[in-house]
């Protein structure tokens, strides 16, 4: 059953924003590294907050001011002009990376910490997770691991990993 959009005002607001206003949203990283957003003639220093940091880390980024009020909501990087998109990408990277894992070399447990050595599209990486921080299945498919620093490691299709990686991952997924 598809919802009839009776909350037209808000839906319309989002659509308008998507079609027109988002294009008008400008983002830039100033010399001090602070992200600034300009929208409808108003500029404000903002920080980024992923709305879906686990399930869809690249979609729906909330730009919030120092009082934590939402200044703008960006559905996807592609909705912005290239310069703004680049500035947002940088801020997102600073707020936490999302790395695509293509292989797992080892998973070792130390006191309270699990130590992962993985191969990512960006190269070899190692990171730590808390023992009780288990990899999560994400609705869009795949598995997401969050390290102690807040960086995310995404395994798009665990079944496509090599046997050794699958065997290592097996113990951590349902």
């Amino acid at each position, binding site marked *: 059953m598809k919802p009839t959009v*009776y909350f037209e005002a808000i839906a319309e607001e989002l659509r308008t924003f998507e079609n027109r206003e988002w294009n008008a949203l400008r983002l830039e990283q100033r010399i001090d590294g602070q992200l600034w957003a300009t929208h409808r003639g108003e500029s404000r220093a903002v920080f980024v907050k992923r709305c879906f940091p686990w399930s869809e880390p690249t979609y729906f980024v*909330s730009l919030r001011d120092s009082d934590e009020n*939402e200044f703008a909501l960006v559905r996807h990087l592609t909705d912005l002009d290239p310069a703004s998109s680049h500035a947002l990408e940088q801020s997102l990277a600073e707020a936490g990376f999302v790395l695509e894992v293509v292989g797992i070399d080892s998973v070792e447990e130390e006191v309270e910490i699990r130590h992962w050595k993985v191969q990512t599209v960006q190269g070899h990486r190692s990171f730590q997770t808390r023992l009780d921080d288990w990899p999560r299945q994400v609705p869009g498919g795949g598995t997401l691991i969050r390290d102690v620093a807040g960086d995310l490691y995404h395994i798009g299709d665990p079944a496509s990993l090599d046997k050794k990686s699958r065997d290592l991952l097996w113990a951590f997924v349902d």
Partner: protein
Amino acid sequence: MAVIWRLLGYLTPYRRRVAAGMGAATLITLVSLIPPYLAGYLIDEVIRPVQSGVLTAARGSAVAWIAVASMAIVFLVRQAGALVRLRMMTVLGEFVARDLRTQLYEHLQTLSLSFYSRKKTGSIITRVSSDTDRLWDFLAFGVVDVSLSVVMLVGLGAVLISLDWQLGLVMTIPVPVLCWWIFRHGERINPRNVDVTKEFNRIHHLWTSFWPALMLAVHATTVAVWVFAIPRLLGGDNGVGPTLSAGTFVSFLLYTTMFVAPIEVIGQMARTMNRATSSAHRVFEVLDTEPEIVEVVEPLRLDPVRGKVVFDNVSFGYDGIRQVLRGVSFEVEPGEIIGLVGPSGGGKTTVVNLIARFYDTTGGTVSIDGIDIRELEIGHYRRQIGMVLQEPYLFHGTVVENVRYGLPEASLSEVVEASKAANAHDFICRLEHGYDTVVGERGQTLSGGERQRISIARAILHDPRILILDEATSSVDTETERKIQEALDRLVAGRTVFAIAHRLSTLHKASRLFVMEDGRLVECGTHRELLESSIGTYRRLYLMQKELK
């Protein structure tokens, strides 16, 4: 016993697996009978003939090696049989437990709300988990163990009688008596006393007295074998030589020790069987409970429901004795917002329970869009009803999963839109993991107002045609109430709404107010109309609340 037969029925779909497991277990039992026979054979046909010079040492050695090799083969066959049996029966047990749990779970979905109000949640969970586990254990291992113990006893009896019929009878005659004793004991320990403490004491006493007595009886039988065998082994005073060979006696003693294990298993099984029977009774009690809300054979679908609700002389009582609603009649047009007000116990919640068809009326009819509610397909109809309750229920999961609960296929955009409409987006984004934050059991990591707004977002996404609000803004602070009220104002637009509220000020959007008192609809009208009545219940309630302010 009927309950045990009913339980065994769950093995029927797995006949092959049961046959393979039983076959393997029978093989284990039969080959277990070989080593004692070989021991006796070695003594009588190899060792003693070699000692007396009838058989050469070389020949004796060759026969001994054959016997040793045979024992090794017996060992290997037993291990292989044990592996097959364990594998077959373990997997079988899992299958049966799965079937039982699935059947229970599916049946629980069909049961009416009244069943859940009678039963404790813990009791239902126990039936699905612990009781099915116990039945799994009984079906997978208990049944096989007992069957094999019986086979073992019969086999042992046959072998003993064939070796020496007199000693064989001494050993086997008490066995049926012991089995009958165990059976009788099983019946005695079956819990029947309502006083749990006394019952546990009684069962404990029965066990502590029964078990040593049983073992004493088994060992007494072994002693009897010795008493009868020794004179025959040594030979009589009348010059007649021994009538029992040393090998046969050794075999006999070895077989005698094998009697204890199956009797022990049967003895333990009496207890396991009682526990399994109790569990089976509890499981079947749920499975045999008929749902009180039954769908007609060919139910109708209203697609979509417009939202016209008519109560025609409706009466209802939860216990069949006390009437909670008495002859309530009203007609609500699609899109109307109805405020249900009145003192506690007046029947407001019962009205909305009947609209959602959690119960059937005991008199009169409830109709939706002109069709008797009992003619409608329950699941399809309920999917078009939304409820925002005083204590919203959030599941252990993420915020996005909870918002999507009524519409799992909703896109992230729709989730965000609904959350914004419910004034929830802002606080969700402040959470550490945003929409991916796990809210904990019943949403315990969130405040009451936050939980309420998530449940409103869920209702917005679900897009019901009939909406029920039960004290949705109670027990929150003024600022949160304002946010929730704002969200509710967006939610109610364009649907038939029944809102229960004690704070009359929250019903400012209601097109009509129904005043319920003592199971009757005593007043009906707009806020202004009801206030104009000089002696009305609503006017009295309104003035009381105004005074309190």
